[in-house]
């Protein structure tokens, strides 16, 4: 049995490699907000209140492009609706927590933290304080995201644009799923999701980000029937 502190540090340790992509992306995100001419305090408020990388950039871009706030808010909701899937997966491991703790821990569920903690949960089901791993990974992401977006807001885009560091985001997610390429059923599901995301890319409100996982999960269900 690992102690709470051990699980917390393990979560922080497991998520730390992803900072390689999260920090530059946060800086870019903060810098874009200021470059588009928005109030720096409001740009930062997004990191605290929304706390969702890609959706923050879309929010800024839509508003600066003249979209109504209704469209911008709806897009953020749709982009982030994928968290419903993460929550459904995590709920198995967080069941025993009190309602208040569930409400608090929900705030720090983000893509990379979900991915790494879910991997750890699957291999260590019997640990009593499992959720400390998620707290460790989630809080590390939160702190780094706040610092990164703030530095982007204050210092501007000091990361040279030519480096194309936005490319680190797909790479970070490649690192997350690459080991599942060993399993044919997962490969089929990934390819389905990937191609649907390109096919539906122009769907309104950036809804490709939830349409393609749904299509891919249907394919997963079909594959399970066949097995």
């Amino acid at each position, binding site marked *: 049995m690992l102690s709470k502190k051990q699980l917390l540090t393990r979560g922080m340790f497991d998520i730390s490699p992803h900072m390689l992509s999260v920090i530059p992306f946060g800086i870019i995100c903060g810098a874009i907000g200021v470059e588009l001419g928005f109030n720096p305090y409001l740009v930062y408020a997004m990191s605290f209140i*929304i*706390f969702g990388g890609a959706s923050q950039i879309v929010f800024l871009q839509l508003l600066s492009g003249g979209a109504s*706030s209704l469209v911008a808010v709806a897009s953020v909701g749709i982009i*982030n609706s994928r968290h419903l899937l993460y*929550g459904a997966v995590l709920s198995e491991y967080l069941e025993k927590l009190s309602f208040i703790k569930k409400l608090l821990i929900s705030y720090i569920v983000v893509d990379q933290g979900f991915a790494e903690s879910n991997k750890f949960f699957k291999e260590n089901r019997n640990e009593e304080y499992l959720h400390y791993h998620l707290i460790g990974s989630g809080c590390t992401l939160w702190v780094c995201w706040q610092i990164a977006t703030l530095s982007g807001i204050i210092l501007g885009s000091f990361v040279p644009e030519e480096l194309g560091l936005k490319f680190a985001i797909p790479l*970070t997610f490649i690192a997350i799923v690459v080991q599942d*390429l060993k399993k044919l059923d997962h490969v089929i599901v990934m390819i389905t*999701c990937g191609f649907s995301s390109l096919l539906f890319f122009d769907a309104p409100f950036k809804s490709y980000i939830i349409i393609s996982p749904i299509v891919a999960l249907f394919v*997963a*269900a079909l594959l399970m029937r066949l097995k």
Partner: protein
Amino acid sequence: MTLTSIIFAGILTYLTRMTMIALISRDMLGDNIKAVLEYVPSAVFPAIIFPGIFINDFGTFIDINDPKIYGAIVAIIVGYFSKNIIATILAGLISYWFLIFIVFS
């Protein structure tokens, strides 16, 4: 952009995070659904990976010989064998930089 719109976007985002964790009990999901949920990472992350590689900042498809494609292939190979996140990201970035700064410049 107003604080109100940010707060609404934040509430909506928080609801997406909280609903399944706090409001739905695990028993409400059937066994089949639980089994399908095993595929969530493989069913969600390619929707971030593919557009991040194949679609540029202007929302159009990239060329077939775009450096990002080669960077991604190198990252997949290195990631598969090294099982190391930092090595995967760096391999992808460095091969991408090698192509844009040295080969294609």
